[in-house]
């Protein structure tokens, strides 16, 4: 390992050190004051990642700071800092005071960054499991909430099974190809697939595991429960960072192999089922967090639709959508977090009239919902557009049409929330929490990102294109 290598992986180091530092400081400073440190760590890592030149694999470390890794490290770091800011006052209201909270967030971020930078299957797996593990804790962090613990347990049990799937899958591919380096392993696996079913079986296991991480139907069932049980800021991060990491995980594995024809079928069905089940199940959902959970299932279905084309456009569209989706869900769950006081603002009815009572929070929530519904001029539209363009170009007209039809259906439940926000006249006094300035800043930033990506997506698209080339 050289000094240059150290410079390169400095973002990772920063995050790791930051989390340890937060833990240490926790002994002397109340947890509440550590948000700043944690945010600074995230932003520092992001800045470093931005300025450091991309470097191909560092064999000793099993990581490589590819352009894609840089991009996603930045995205994840920003998401983490938004989450931290959102949790700052939220945790105060809930009595989550320990330094372990920001530290765990940073651990999760560390996992994500490692995953993004991974060049071997081992680091990839470790990154994935590290971030998932952090989320097991985060989901159950609110000790006052039974639901949190229940959600944590459910997530953990299923997560562990999926980890087993993925581990076994990687093991099979390793056995088939004899290397853990991602590119040769996956390429070798692809070559071997025709003759040797071993690698293919490995792929099947990995796919199933990844389906869990991305909450694709039929491995989606944990999602609503966990989203409902977890504290909203955590769910914001869970639904964005963890999902993004899972997509990145799939992209990383799929890309070197090229399009494996045998995988097309499973991916096709995963995409279709997720889009359909997610959107339909959300239609009459009363709990906003479960609603957003089903929505995220469907959104991941769209991402899968882009992925299964196996084309550069497809990966590009998926990556773009992930970035965008991060912003959208951060805003959506962030708004829920900001509105929730001692208890979560759970049912949709509780949002009645908030459009006028809490104009700012409700406004950004509505924006996020419109974006999730894919309505211009929000970024959500651009994201969907790129995905469907990629799907049609990749020769998936049927799935594209079906997907669009489910998107039509989905408009209904997003609108239901908006209807409650704005279209019902307020009768009772509004008890929802007022946004604090610490919450406003991240919400504004994320909302601006949503709008910016909707109006001028060119630069981000160019970065992604370049990174994928």
């Amino acid at each position, binding site marked *: 390992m050289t000094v240059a290598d150290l410079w390169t992986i400095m973002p990772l180091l920063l995050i790791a050190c930051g989390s340890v530092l937060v833990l240490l400081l926790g002994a002397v400073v109340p947890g509440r004051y550590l948000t700043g440190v944690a945010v600074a760590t995230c932003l520092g890592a992001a800045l470093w990642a931005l300025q450091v030149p991309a470097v191909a694999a560092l064999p000793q470390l099993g990581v490589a700071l590819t352009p894609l890794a840089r991009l996603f490290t930045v995205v994840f770091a920003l998401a983490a800092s938004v989450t931290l800011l959102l949790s700052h006052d939220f945790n105060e209201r809930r009595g989550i005071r320990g330094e372990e909270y920001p530290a765990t967030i940073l651990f999760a971020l560390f996992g994500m960054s490692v995953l993004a930078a991974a060049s071997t299957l081992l680091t990839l797996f470790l990154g994935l499991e590290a971030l998932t593990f952090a989320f097991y804790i985060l989901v159950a962090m609110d000790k006052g909430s039974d639901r949190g613990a229940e959600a944590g347990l459910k997530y953990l049990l299923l997560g562990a099974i999926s980890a087993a799937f993925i581990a076994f899958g990687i093991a099979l591919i390793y056995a088939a190809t004899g290397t853990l380096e991602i590119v040769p392993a996956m390429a070798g696996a692809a070559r071997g697939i025709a003759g040797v079913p071993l690698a293919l079986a490995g792929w099947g296991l990995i796919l199933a595991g990844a389906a869990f991480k991305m909450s694709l139907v039929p491995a989606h069932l944990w999602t609503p429960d966990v989203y409902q049980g977890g504290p909203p800021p955590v769910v914001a991060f869970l639904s964005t960072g963890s999902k993004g990491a899972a997509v990145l995980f799939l992209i990383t594995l799929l890309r070197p192999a090229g399009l494996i024809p045998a995988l097309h079928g499973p991916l096709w069905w995963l995409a279709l089922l997720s889009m359909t089940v997610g959107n339909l199940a959300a239609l009459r959902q009363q709990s906003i967090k479960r609603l957003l959970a089903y929505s995220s299932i469907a959104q991941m279905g769209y991402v899968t639709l882009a992925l299964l084309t196996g084309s550069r456009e497809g990966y590009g569209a998926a990556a773009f959508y992930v970035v965008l989706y991060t912003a959208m869900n951060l805003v959506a769950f962030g708004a829920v977090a900001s509105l929730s006081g001692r208890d979560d603002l759970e049912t949709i009815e509780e949002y009645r009239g908030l459009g*006028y009572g809490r104009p700012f929070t409700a406004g950004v929530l509505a924006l996020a919902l*419109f974006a999730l519904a894919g*309505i*211009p*001029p929000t970024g959500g*539209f651009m994201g969907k*557009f790129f995905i*469907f*363009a990629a799907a*049609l*170009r990749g020769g998936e*007209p049927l799935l*594209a*049409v079906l997907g*669009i*039809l489910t*998107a*039509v259906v989905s*408009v*209904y439940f997003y*609108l*239901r929330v908006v*209807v409650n926000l*704005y*279209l*019902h006249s307020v009768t009772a006094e509004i008890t929802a929490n007022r946004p604090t300035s610490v919450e406003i800043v991240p919400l504004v930033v994320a909302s601006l990102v949503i709008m910016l990506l909707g109006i*001028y*997506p*060119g630069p981000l*698209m*160019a970065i992604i*294109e370049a990174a994928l080339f």
Partner: protein
Amino acid sequence: MAYPILTILVFLPLAGAFALLPFWRRDRWAKGFALCCALVELALAGWLLFAASGMQAAQGAPAGYFLWEDYTWIGRFGISYTLGMDGISLLMTVLTAFVTLLAMLVSWRGIRERVPLHYLMLLVMESGIVGVFLALDLFLFYLFWEVMLIPMFFLIGIWGHGRRIYSAVKFFIYTMAGSLLMLLAIIGIYLLHGNQGGNYTFALHQLIGTGIDPGISLWLFAAFLLAFAIKVPVFPLHTWLPDAHTDAPTAGSVILAGLLLKTGAYGLIRFGYPLFPTAAKAVTPLLITLAVIGIVYGSWVAYAQEDMKRLVAYSSVGHMGFVALGIAVWSPVALSGAVLQMVNHGITTGALFALVGMLDERTDTREIAAYGGVWGKAPMLAFFFLLFSMASAGLPGLNNFVGEFLILAGAFRVTPLAVVIGFIGIVLPLIYTVRLVQQVLFVEERRPLAIPDLTIREGSVLAALALIAIYLGVHPAPLLDLLKVPVALLTGVAP
């Protein structure tokens, strides 16, 4: 052209909407400011209407366009920011500016809650609609097409009546359903064009003439048609309309009828038919049939209505059936008539909705059976009511007749049978109109409703509309001249 007039036209209302935010707590200021924006927009559009005849073809523009702005937007995908104006879009832009202003004026007193938001929505809507009429890049067009929905959704949902939420959501999803499929079709033609020559672009003038396999072309056109037919609306895709119109506030109804329906017809004229001429030809019999059914059916159902607004709403189905017929036959005379009829319908039905709104404002009911004897109570209101009812029933000398007659005259060469039935569609509006007029204006009052006559604001709005209706009825020549070049280019005949 040194100034980006088209961009200004599109974004001036939007800028106005943002500039409205400081007046958030001051209703009167907000109203006044919004009105100023609308006035400036109308002045600009109106000026173009007069200046248009003297303008040369714009540089770099396809034939027929005298204003043209073209910038790369998302180069990677061949998406550009292309705005262009020809006679048709000019007319539609002026109509938009005018109807928006009208909508603001008719809701001046009726809206008491969240006033600034209401006007903000109207301004955003204006931007969206003008954008639809000016965009010549399919992607950009689609963007504006969808943007229009949001303010209308809120207009219906927040300030509406009755089952406003149901109607608002229905309106939104119904139109979304069509337009999302159109999005796929837009991507489809983009890819097909790109695959042929490697030039991936969304620019309309480049996409026109793309050689497409007839089977695929039919599917793509079907998606376009679906989106536009829902907006027009063409039978049997019309059922969102009575609900939306009925439950919308006055301004919403006026804009829905006056403008949103036009975007569907405009889309067919500007995009649907030119992009897929062969498919359009194949679908023509179907569209003609549906248009004719719509003409008869809409008017027939209107007769049974008990709610004035619903009646006017169903009448729109019938009237827009004429527009659909005019487009479907795609002959120069009929197409000119169709465009003219779009304007006419906007004026007439907009005025009728405004009148119903005024009555509703005074009495809190729109039930026809509650009224009676309005002529004696509010003669001016009654006079305008009669005038616009007659215009809507196609009385010659008023505007609707001109459009309908040209459509029928032009369509006869193509499809005599449809025209014969279409003429029946000229009788049926009269039947429900005179019933409405009789029950509302004439006979003894049924309930003791106090109906004060028009205020000066209302009177001047209606008078302006009436003048336009009469002017268009007796002297539509300037507008027809304006349409000559674009219609000739579209239909491929000598102007």
